[in-house]
């Protein structure tokens, strides 16, 4: 029987505010509850949302009153969160504190206090940061402070992992890459059979240990009919993004007139709002493209699918992106994806679903032209995309992989299994001088970090000449506050909250998420080949 944990997700960003991090936390928590864990969420109070709330599945949300300064990020007070946090943690008997988003000061504070209280901590990084400008330098220093004493870090893509390792000077082995996921059932293409609640077992191989049957997911009778595109049928290109500079709206504005001029039977649908929308509108008016570019304005996340299925191509001109959930959603809706090759985007989708472009106007126009030509030749089997995306990403799989991280940091799986066999031997022999020095600061078992104050101080001290000493002072003060709180509000006087009845862990045999096998890709290529000959 695998151990179950009581987990507190801490982040500034949560519902009712919409966004990617918010839905990530919600979906992950739900799936973890399904796997038998207890999950609570701690966020700050939103307007109209205060106190304690219950969401579906018994997910408890604490809205802590806090001063919000900028874009719903709270004011970074290093210690003020501690009393409330300690109360919640003791009340809910939390084992693991899982913080999200590097811009959330609530999360950083929670990680610091949790380590002081002797809890395991995990941090998930959702975004990429540069190193050049002054704001990044400050953010990175703060991140280093928060992550000096974290047990494990989760990143959403390999690029994000590299970035986080560099920013916070982490050991790469304590950083896991667990991608985001999509709820594929919410992003079905048009005309897709709606038997979603229990997909027939013919789609998935029944036991995950077995070698996959390549034909199982692709040749099932449920695949929708092919969409054959005639030579004069209109092709619709969909763009859904907030219209900001870093989303590449300038590229889009420059590329649209050229794409439309080069390809007569094409039109654009643009959804989203932002400061750059005025540029787009100006471009439309200057080039008189009102009948070929449709601007929908801001749309809700639930309407994204309805917009996407109106198109054939999804264009994503972003300039930086840690994961790019939206292109997965687009592929799940059966759209051919044209995207810029930045950040973590190249890792997200296989080559047969995407056309990559450099973040240049010319290249973007050329890539879109290539995509349009491929669609016109009916080379791309977009109707198969949904099933494949379903096999690539699922929240159940994300929760499963996150659970392995929890097991690793709490010692449920051995350090050797979690970090690799070679390390232990290395450590015992002491053959590598520099490395034993590193492990000394992490305690005897690097998977299970020592809670002793002196060990923690050693980790913080290495943060920098001045910063290291400052951080050490902060940690000592935090510890003193902890002792003070133990005196003034003793543990015995804090009520224990009764748990919501735990779920039995469902053994899900469906082969969803976790990635595509190479065989599936080969199968796809084999099946799309005859159309090319035609």
């Amino acid at each position, binding site marked *: 029987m695998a151990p179950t944990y009581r987990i507190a997700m801490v982040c500034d960003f949560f519902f009712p505010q919409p966004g990617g991090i918010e839905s990530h936390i919600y979906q992950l928590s739900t799936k973890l509850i399904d796997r038998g864990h207890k999950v609570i969420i701690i966020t700050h109070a939103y307007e109209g949302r205060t106190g304690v709330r219950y969401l579906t599945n018994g997910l408890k949300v604490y809205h802590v009153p806090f001063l919000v300064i900028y874009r719903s990020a709270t004011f970074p007070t290093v210690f003020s969160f501690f009393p409330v946090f300690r109360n919640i943690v003791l009340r809910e008997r939390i084992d693991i504190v899982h913080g999200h988003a590097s811009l959330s000061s609530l999360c950083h504070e929670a990680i610091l206090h949790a380590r002081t209280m002797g809890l395991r901590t995990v941090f998930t990084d959702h975004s990429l940061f540069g190193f050049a400008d002054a704001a990044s330098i400050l953010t990175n220093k703060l991140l280093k402070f928060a992550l000096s004493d974290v047990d494990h870090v989760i990143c959403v893509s390999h690029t994000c992992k590299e970035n986080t390792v560099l920013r916070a000077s982490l050991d790469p082995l304590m950083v896991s890459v667990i991608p985001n996921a999509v709820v594929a059932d919410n992003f079905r293409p048009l005309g897709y059979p709606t038997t979603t609640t229990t997909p027939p077992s013919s789609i998935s191989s029944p036991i995950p240990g077995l070698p996959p049957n390549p034909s199982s997911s692709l040749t099932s009778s449920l695949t929708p009919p092919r969409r054959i595109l005639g030579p004069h049928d209109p092709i619709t290109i969909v763009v859904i993004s907030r219209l900001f500079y870093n989303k590449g709206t300038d590229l889009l504005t420059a590329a649209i007139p050229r794409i439309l001029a080069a390809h007569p039977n094409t039109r654009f649908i643009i959804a989203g709002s932002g400061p750059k929308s005025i540029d787009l509108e100006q471009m439309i008016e200057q080039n008189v493209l009102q009948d070929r570019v449709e601007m929908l304005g801001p749309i809700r996340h639930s309407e994204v699918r309805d917009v996407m299925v109106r198109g054939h191509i999804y264009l994503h001109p972003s300039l930086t992106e840690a994961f790019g959930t939206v292109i997965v959603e687009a592929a799940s809706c059966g759209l051919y994806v044209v995207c810029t090759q930045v950040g973590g985007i190249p890792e997200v989708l296989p080559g047969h679903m995407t056309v990559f472009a450099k973040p240049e106007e010319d290249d973007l126009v050329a890539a879109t032209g290539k995509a349009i030509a491929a669609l016109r030749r009916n080379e791309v089997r977009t109707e198969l995309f949904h099933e494949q995306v379903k096999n690539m990403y699922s929240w159940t799989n994300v929760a499963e992989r996150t659970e392995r991280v929890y097991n690793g940091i709490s010692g449920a799986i051995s350090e050797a299994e979690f970090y690799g066999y070679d*390390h232990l031997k290395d450590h015992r022999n002491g053959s590598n001088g520099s490395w034993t020095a590193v492990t000394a600061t992490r305690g005897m078992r690097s998977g299970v970090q020592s809670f002793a104050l002196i060990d923690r101080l050693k980790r913080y001290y290495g943060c920098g000449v001045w910063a290291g000493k400052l951080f050490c002072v902060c940690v000592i003060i935090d510890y003193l506050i902890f002792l003070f709180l133990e005196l003034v509000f003793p543990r015995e006087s804090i009520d224990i909250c009764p748990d919501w009845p735990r779920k039995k862990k469902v053994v899900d045999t469906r082969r969803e998420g976790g990635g595509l096998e190479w065989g599936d890709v080969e199968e796809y290529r084999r099946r799309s080949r005859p159309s090319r000959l035609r």
Partner: protein
Amino acid sequence: MAPPSGLHQTALSSDFETPFPPLVRSSTAPVAFKSHRADPSHLAPEDAYSPVSPPRRTSLYNLRPRLIRRKEGSRSRSRRRQRRFQKLLWVKQSYPDNYTDQATFLEKLQRNPRVKPYDFWPLVADSTVIVQQVCSVIIFVVCFVGIFQERVSPVSVVGFGSFATFIGWLLWDWWVAEESLGAQRAMDGTTHSHRGRDPRPVRRQDSLGGPTRNASIVSLPGAGAGAGTGAATPTPASALPSTAPSPRLDQHLHIPRFSIGPTDSRSASIEPSTAAASPAGSRAQSVADFHEAHYGHHRQRSSISSPIRGGGVLPGNSRLQLRLSTIKSAVLIYFTLLGLSPILKSLTRSTSSDSIWAISFWLLAINIFFFDYSINNNPFTQATITNPHSNQTGAQHKFPIASLSTNAALMASTVLASRLPSTGQVFSLTLFSIEVFGLFPVFRRYARHRSFRYHVILTVLLLLGAGAGVGIIIGAPWVCECWQTWLKHSLLGMIVSCLIAAVAMGGCSWWLIGLQKYKNEIYGPWDPARPIIISRRYYDDE
């Protein structure tokens, strides 16, 4: 990152090669960094000059016994071979999530890719601009001290200053006329030249015919306003609705317009400060006009809203008009200051002197620190390279800094002048400050633009003057009749100032070059990409 190449047959065949080594702790240990440099957080000195990515950590794992890690029940075992690790999220990896692949981890990391190493002598040459400004401020302070201690008669100071200004103006006017002539000739020669040509083709032509990234510059003939007025303004066609159809006529028509009615950042910067000194609005306007006429030569953007007075007049005629209006403005300033001097004299009577010294020190420091030292000494280059849009944004960034500097200096002079006892002294100092802080930088900039030799001569003169002044003020006794003492002290001051300047310029340049080894810029795929947009109409830097 390349699109997944595993789809290709070649990549598939490579999968049958030796499997990649398993998860090995030592493989990710920061050993390799320590092996060849002492401190991994700093770059070694050679990195500053050979900007390459750090060496890849290879072949470390060969030293360790291999231990193939097997995951029970994983599909990889049934396939009996481990796929090569790839940085892909959509594929089913047979590696744990925290696996760190040695070959691909941080492979896109670049260190210091865009670092241009400095050279010593160009750096020293560039630092002369700062020396000039510092010396100007020192000379001003010396003059004030001289007037304040009544060693120098204020009339001689302002007389000398005005005379120098007049000479400078004549010189400037002559240069402008010369270039205008050259530009006309070049324009007559080539109708569709992008830029006004210059009779002296050395070094300038490169920059003139330099990379015009902007399509709108090339397509717009009106932008080729000449070097004659110094107004090379790439104007977007939309901003000039009155552009005449004939390109040549257009050029002729627009030259005076650019020369007389530009809204320059500098002229705008002068305007509020002078207006602060003289509440009379119309006079401030005339002062501004005067400055426009003087400042009109560098980095202008045409503005339709600015008063167009010389439009439609041929260059020769407009030159005369320009001179007349300049003289008119000078006279107006003169009398404005004369009228204002009694007011300024008693402005800060209730404030104690040491506050005034402190305030003026800080204001002059602000002037030095925020002065516009931009090295780009060719106004045409600036106009050519920057496209209209970024020109505007650049001006938005630059505008407050340049005006802050000039305003601070004029404020300092006003405050200092209010310490002086007589109206004549106040008037002299204020006028002198306008000449030093308002007009002289323009002349210096233009001299630097004309020839580097003028620039050096000017620097040396300023340096010697400042040194001599400081030497006399500090060294010589209160009122000394014997001119030998003065000469001795001024010579001593010159030598000391030259020594200090040499040490400071050389030392700072050397120090800056030495500091380059700490440069550690990290670039990678996580940085926001810089979009390359050809039709840059909509591109905004932010």
